[in-house]
């Protein structure tokens, strides 16, 4: 399956695939954990992990051409995912696997990210890239909202038929790939803002392309949820009478199309 936008050539190393629903948590936008009340030792551990992330991202965003950027992104991507998983695992230990607390932190992080892009995005990256980043953060929020549905005890413990189990495995690995790929590119923008490192003009379109894979992550998350919570059948709609007003509206729309410049 290909993604909307960038088509990553790499894949996740086998050990990095999420084997269970719980492991999906690593891929739904957990980043800085500043607001978590934790001991200084663990805080320092988070700080060290953040430094590793910064070094990976900085090595990527300092490239001058799109080709160099993409090659470096591919080379470092699996390490980035290892760090994502480490952060998530550590957070689960700190929060004692409290899904609601995790949800609150993820939502807060995403709100802050969105505000950062609203306040500084246009100035730093221009309108188009800033809009793409805001849409990506919004999509991560929608994706996370889908994933939380799976954590209901009645859902997570549901036994799936054999063919759905296979599909679930495939969806989880695809979800992890697309979601992490988008987050990697989002972190390129946030790191650029935070460390005041400008992106080269040739690199920005490649970053925007990478952000587009979050749409795929959402679409796959939706299919995972549908496996566990099949949609209810739709009720039949009552037929209505098509009248002159409907005809006029339809004709007007088609007339507009004739005149429209897209």
């Amino acid at each position, binding site marked *: 399956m290909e993604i909307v936008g960038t088509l990553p050539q790499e894949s996740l190393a086998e050990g990095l695939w999420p084997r269970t629903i719980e492991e999906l948590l690593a891929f739904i936008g957990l980043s800085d954990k500043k607001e978590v009340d934790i001991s200084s030792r663990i805080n320092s551990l988070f700080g060290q992990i953040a430094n590793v992330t910064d070094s990976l991202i900085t090595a990527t965003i300092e490239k001058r051409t799109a080709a160099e950027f993409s090659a470096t992104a591919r080379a470092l991507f699996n390490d980035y995912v290892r760090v994502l998983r480490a952060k998530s695992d550590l957070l689960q230990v700190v929060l004692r696997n409290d899904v609601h607390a995790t949800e609150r932190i993820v939502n807060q992080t995403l709100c802050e990210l969105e505000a950062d892009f609203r306040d500084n995005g246009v100035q730093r990256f221009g309108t188009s890239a800033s809009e793409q980043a805001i849409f*990506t953060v*919004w999509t991560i929020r*929608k994706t996370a909202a889908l994933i939380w549905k799976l954590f209901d005890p009645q859902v997570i413990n549901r036994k799936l038929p054999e063919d759905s189990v296979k599909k679930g495995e495939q969806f989880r690995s695809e979800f992890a790939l697309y979601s992490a790929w988008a987050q990697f590119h989002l972190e390129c923008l946030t790191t650029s803002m935070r460390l005041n490192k400008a992106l080269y003009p040739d690199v920005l379109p490649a970053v925007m392309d990478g952000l587009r894979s979050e749409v795929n992550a959402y679409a*796959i998350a939706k299919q995972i949820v549908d496996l566990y919570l099949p949609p209810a059948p739709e009720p039949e709609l009552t037929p209505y009478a098509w009248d002159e007003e409907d005809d006029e509206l339809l004709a007007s729309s088609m007339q507009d199309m004739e005149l429209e410049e897209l």
Partner: protein
Amino acid sequence: MEVLQGDIYWVRARDLDIEGSEQKNNRPYVIVSRLRINRLGKNVVGVPLSTKLHKACGHRVMIPLQMMVKDLSWPLEWAPGQPRTQLETSVALTDHVRVLDKDRLTQPRMGYLSSTAIVGLELALHYVFESPQNP
């Protein structure tokens, strides 16, 4: 005629356009209205596709050709020597969503979107229409 969500049709802007004419504003549309709605009236709702890929941004999602399934019955030419527009990687202009007359959909359909692409398009439309009071 059964028009399905995710189908891609070549839509004629003018009633007088005969099939095979490539007028400026004729273009492919993805049908986004659901089947039950499509069955009820003379209209469907569609999102235009553009091959100007630089228009992709946020809610204007790019749909790679790999996420479209070409309908083999969509011919290569309108008439000998008159090539038809074929499906290619496109941008869905979700902010130009439009009511379409079913009679202007050129048969057969050009193809349809993969289920992943349909959900992606649905997401982009949600972004376009979402109320700020209800994020």
